[in-house]
């Protein structure tokens, strides 16, 4: 009987792996091999680091988005928050003359506060996250424009630029930050009480409440962390661009959401992983880089991007179907 037990749990593990992110991994591999064959510029150390650097901002946002989507939420305001935090950081440094560290800390606080506001609206006020963040999307974007009067704030400070443009050895600093956040994000989700509660809220909120999980607090913490992470992205982007621009981060939320879903996290809640999300981030990053390398025309790029996302999820589903009993 012990054998049966082990067998099931092994099968289970495989199934979990393939179900959630295995096929995203498959999609990534296919894309990778395809690109290697199509462009001799793709598989070079410098290009891969280049892709990683470009993907890092999306990666950081996507970690928070993973948490949010596991709780059945969504965050459409991430891109606008990238703009707001980027302009705030730039403004604090250039207009207020604050030291870099202070400016960064204050900016992170802004991000976290915006996130906790979202969390409050979602939990205590019970407003659908789609609506809260849809409203916040235009509010935060508007705030960034009002704050800057529509003029990007150029940051001349060299130290600040290092965050987004510097290297540690051969590795770009944003890549290091993103990997670090990915690892922490993974551990928090899988190995902490907080992570467990995130899954429980998304899996069965009623049951979680009855188990004594503090739903509201969990949701507020989730959005607060996501806001904090988005602020990090905002700072990195502002540093990369040496500019706090109210136009920055346009559409960033959609890239993050796409990465999360490609990585096997489900809108139905209760399922998902940071590692899967990073695979999704890699797919989207390579796709953007690849289409540029292959000189695909602008209009065709739109179509190809959409088709690849659709295909990636389709491949996923065909695998899932084979395992399913019916339907």
């Amino acid at each position, binding site marked *: *009987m012990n054998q049966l*037990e*082990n067998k*099931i*749990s092994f099968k*289970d*593990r495989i199934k*979990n792996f393939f179900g959630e992110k295995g096929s995203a991994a498959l999609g990534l591999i296919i894309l990778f091999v395809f690109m290697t064959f199509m462009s001799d510029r793709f598989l070079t150390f410098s290009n891969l680091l280049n892709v990683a650097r470009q993907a890092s901002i999306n990666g950081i946002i996507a970690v928070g988005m993973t948490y949010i989507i596991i709780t059945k939420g969504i965050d459409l305001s991430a891109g606008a928050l990238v703009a707001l935090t980027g302009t705030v950081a730039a403004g604090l440094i250039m207009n207020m003359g604050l030291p870099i560290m202070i400016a960064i800390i204050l900016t992170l606080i802004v991000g976290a506060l915006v996130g906790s506001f979202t969390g409050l609206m979602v939990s205590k006020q019970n407003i659908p996250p789609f609506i809260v963040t849809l409203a916040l999307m235009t509010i935060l974007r508007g705030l960034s424009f009002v704050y800057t009067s529509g003029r990007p704030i150029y940051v001349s400070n060299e130290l600040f630029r290092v965050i987004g443009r510097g290297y540690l050895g051969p590795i770009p600093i944003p890549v290091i930050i993103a990997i670090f956040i990915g690892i922490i994000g993974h551990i*928090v989700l899988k*190995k*902490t*009480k*907080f992570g*467990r*509660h995130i*899954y*429980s809220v998304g*899996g*069965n909120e*009623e*049951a*979680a*409440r*009855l*188990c*004594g*999980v*503090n739903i509201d607090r969990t949701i507020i913490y989730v959005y607060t962390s996501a806001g904090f992470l988005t602020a990090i992205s905002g700072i990195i982007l502002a540093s990369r661009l040496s500019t706090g621009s109210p136009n920055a981060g346009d559409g960033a939320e959609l890239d993050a959401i796409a990465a999360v879903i490609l990585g096997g996290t489900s809108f139905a809640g*209760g*399922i998902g992983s940071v590692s899967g999300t990073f695979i999704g981030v890699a797919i989207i990053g390579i796709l953007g880089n690849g289409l540029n390398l292959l000189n695909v025309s602008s209009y065709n790029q739109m179509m190809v991007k959409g088709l690849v996302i659709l295909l990636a999820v389709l491949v996923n589903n065909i695998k899932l179907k084979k395992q399913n*009993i*019916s339907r």
Partner: protein
Amino acid sequence: MDNEILRLEGLSKYFPGVKALDDISFDLIEGEIHALIGENGAGKSTLIKVLTGAYQKTHGKVFYRGNEVKKLNPTKAKSLGISAIYQELTLFPDLTVAQNIFMGNEKVYNKSNIVKDKEMMNEVRKIFEKIKLDISPEILVKNLSIAQQQMIEIARAISLDADILIMDEPTSSISNKETEILFEIIEDLKKQGVTIIYISHRLEEIFEIANRVTVLRNGKKIKTLKIDEIKNKDQLVNLMVGKEVTDLFPKKEVKIGDTILKVQNLSAQNKFEDINFELKKGEILGVGGLVGSQRTEVMETIFGLRNFDNGEIILNGHKVKISNPQNAIDLGLGLISEDRKGTGIIKTMSVKENITLPGLDLIDRKYSVLIDNKSEEIAADALVDRLNVKTPSLRQKIDKLSGGNQQKAIIARWILLAPEILIMDEPTRGIDVGAKSEIYELMGELVAKGISIIMISSENPELLAMSDRIMVMREGKISGFLEGKKQTEENILKLAFGGVVN
């Protein structure tokens, strides 16, 4: 003097249009097993949800060891040592068994937020050993059967080391074997001084374990009795119903006709194989077996919900292809599922809409496309009346009804369709005695009209009383049929456990 651990004074709980609890006073003595009984909708589940803080009371006071508890919420209740197994499953399908059991109660490295997975896993194994449950702690809960899930709930409640443990119909979806294990556990807990509130519609269980019994009716407390003050089951039934109830199994003899359904060599990989049986017109075919014996799967396959690899289904002499429930319904089949919440009710819809959903084509139309309101209401109303569904109105959202009344509404759904064959999977699960006998009576009427019934049941008395024949399954195979005098509890068990009946 007995130690009172919990006392309720004048407790009321109102829902819009419903006084679910009306001025209840109740006391709980440390270490006792206190049974709570009453018809469907009497307020049992509401009472325990107030006690665990899941619902906020409307009026009244709650005292814990003599001190009033003002704000009772799930966290507070937990800190008082109150834990519960709810009537509805409260599990997380995509998490593992171990994660489920420790949800909200995780073991962590001192004061950190990091969980000790290994330790929790070992703990679960220990608990499972104690309750003789053979499930891997690493398996995802969604891969377990309802009964197994119920056992997980029980394990979770035990793992909490509660002072007061409330069990709302814990046995409604588990087999006799598991029930026995549960009772052993309850005895153990009692010895450790745990106080238990026990809710069940199976009155014989009450005599087996309870010290005292409180009867609720229509949200009011009728009486609390010591177990030795109770003469017999009928006395309890009368208290619950408020009138005399006789003849719990009122099945009349019906002339059995020709074969209507023939299932041949039906097999589905890793599920079941070589299923062969026949169903005759006007017959009630009981299906017995242990939980996990794949009875549900076989019937769901026949109803078009699942794929199969081999075999044939022959209806009225014709081989039929049923690839989805729509086909099945068109061919005159109906199925009442065992999972009321998951695959039965549609909680966003009203009682009326739930009843008429599969039978909308039978309702009159205006301008040949628009559903005629009047005609729909008349149909639904008649069924609500006939089945005695307790609801404030046809427009009430169905999830506001008590479990038993939801079940009756679901049965109404299929009666409207007047199928030739009705498959009933655990049809009286969680249903009170009064409603049970109504459902049995109804089954009798249906077969008298020439309808054939397949009834899966884990309650052997019910199988024995209602079935013309009993088919017993074991591990995905049919282990035998029992007819006439061979229909005994002992024989069902023999077949279920792999024995032979001669």
